C-alpha cells in the first residue's frame, strides 16, 4: 500500500497547509463523504473535489463539488 501523508489542518499551520493542498489529496468530510482534490484555487477557503464515496447521497459519487475548509475532517495525500 502506498504511503499516505496526513495533513494537520489545525491551528495556523493548518491554514497554510489547507491553502496549498495538492491535487490528488484525499479528503474526508465531516458528513462522512470522501473525495479527491482535483483543483485548489489557493484562496484559503475552497478546494474542488471529486466524490469517491458519499454515505447520504450515492448519486454524488463521481461528481465534482467545491468544498469549504470547515466541512472537512481530514486530509491525506
Amino acid at each position: 500500500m502506498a504511503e499516505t501523508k496526513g495533513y494537520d489542518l489545525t491551528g495556523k499551520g493548518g491554514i497554510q497547509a489547507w491553502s496549498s493542498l495538492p491535487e490528488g489529496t484525499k479528503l474526508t468530510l465531516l458528513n462522512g463523504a470522501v473525495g479527491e482534490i482535483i483543483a485548489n484555487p489557493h484562496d484559503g477557503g475552497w478546494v474542488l473535489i471529486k466524490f469517491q464515496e458519499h454515505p447520504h447521497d450515492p448519486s454524488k459519487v463521481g461528481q465534482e463539488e467545491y468544498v469549504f475548509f470547515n466541512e472537512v475532517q481530514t486530509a491525506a495525500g
Partner: protein
Amino acid sequence: MVTILRARGDRSIRSFIDYERGTISRELYVHPDIFEQEMEQIFQRCWLFLGHESQIPNPGDFIVSRMGTEEVIVVRDRKDKQIRAFLNSCRHRGMKVCRYDQGNNLVFTCPFHAWTYDTAGKLVGVGYGNHPEAYGDTRPGDQWGLAQVAQFKNFHGSLWATWDPKAPSFEDYLGPFTASLRHCLQSSDGEDGGLEMFTPFQRHRLPTNWKVPGFTSVTDGTHAAMTHRSAAAAGLHEDRGQGKAKPGTPFPREMYAIGDHNLGHGGQCTFYNQPGVPDYTDEWFEPGVDDYFRETAGRKAQLYANRVLAPHGWGGGHFAIFPCVMVDSWRIRWYHPHETGMVERWTLCGVDKNAPKHVKNAVRHYVQRYNGPTGFFESDDMENWNYVYPASRGVRARKLDYFFANGLGHGKYDDRLPGVVVNGAYTEEAQRARFSRWLAFMEAKSWDDLYPVNTSKNHRIW
C-alpha cells in the same frame, strides 16, 4: 425623462442647449443631478468598450474593466472558453469580489462570507452552505450567480457590452461606423482582428467631468496647434522617426469633421476617394521596422486593390464611438466617469500580433513616448482638461455657456456615409452630434425612443 435642475430654476434639460446660438450651459458639466442621470440614461444603455481579447487568451484569464462608475470582471471561462462580463459585486451583500486588475482564476471567491463563483459566473460554493445549522433549504441556487451584462460582443477582437437587453445589435449601434471600427482593428496588412494589445491598461485619473475630455475634447481639431506646441518645441512632434518621413505619391483623400447626430459617433475622419491605400513612407528610427511595415503595406495594397478604405482617423484625426470611446488605427482611448468632477482615462495600444519581436518593441516604445504616464503628448492635454473643471464650476462661472458654434449651419450630408453630417475639418460638428445624441438619451424613456434612429425619428438638434 426630463430632469429639473433646481440650481437654475425649473428648466428642462433641453433648455440648457441653445441650438441657434450653438451654446451649451456649463451646468451640464458640473451639476451632480445631471451626472446621476447620465449614469442611468447613457451608461446603463449604451454599448461600452471593455478591453481586447488578446488580454485574456487562456481559459481562466480575466481582466477587471469598468462600465461607467462600476467595475466588471471580463473572464474567459475554463470550460467553454467563451468570454463573459460580470458586475464585480458579490450577490450576497455587495462586496467587491475580485480585487486584482488581471490574472488567471479557477474561481472568484468573495473575501467576506466566501460565496464563490466559477469563471462562467455561476455560484458554486457558499461558506457554511452544507453546515447543519446554516442555510439548509434556503441555500441560494443558480439565480444567485454574478450579475451578467445583458449583451456582449466580440467585434474583431474588441470586447463590448451593454446592460440594456433592448439595445440594438452592436453593428446597428455603430451604423455607418462599423466599417471604420473594423478597419482600425486590422493589422497593418489588412487582416481582420490582426492586433494584440500591450498590457496592462494605461490609466490616468483626472479631476474633471467626463465630458470635458470624453465629449468636448475628443476629436477636437483646433486644440493641437496650441496645446501641443510645447511638444513641438521640444522636437517631439515628429512621430516616429524625426524628419525621416519622405512624402509619398499624393493619394486622393480629404479630412473632415463629421458627426452622426442620430447615433452620436463622429470625429475628424479621412475619406478616401479611390480604391487602394496610400504609399508607405519610412518613418521609424529602429532598424528593420520600416522593412516590416513596407512589406505588410504591400500586402494590404493588394487586398485593397479594388476596395476603398473606410473613413477613419488619419494625420492626427480620430473618431469616437458614443459615448466616449476614441478610436485610431493604433490605439483605443476611453473614459470611465467616477463622479461629477472625476474621470479615469484608459488607453490600449495595439500592434500586429504576428509582428516580429523587434517590431513589437519599437511600437511599444513609441506608444510609451506618446501616451501614458511616461508619454509627452497627453500630459499637455490633461493640463487643460484638469483646469477646465474648477474654472467652470464656480457659482459665477457656471452661469456662462460653452461655445460650440464653430461651423454651425455649414454641415452637409454625404452619400459616402449615409446619415452623417460632414463639415470642415476644424469645426465642432462631431461635438454637436454627440450632444444631439446625448439629449436623445437623456430624454428617452427606453431604447424604443432611441432606435431605429434614422427612420422614424431625427434627433439632430442643430
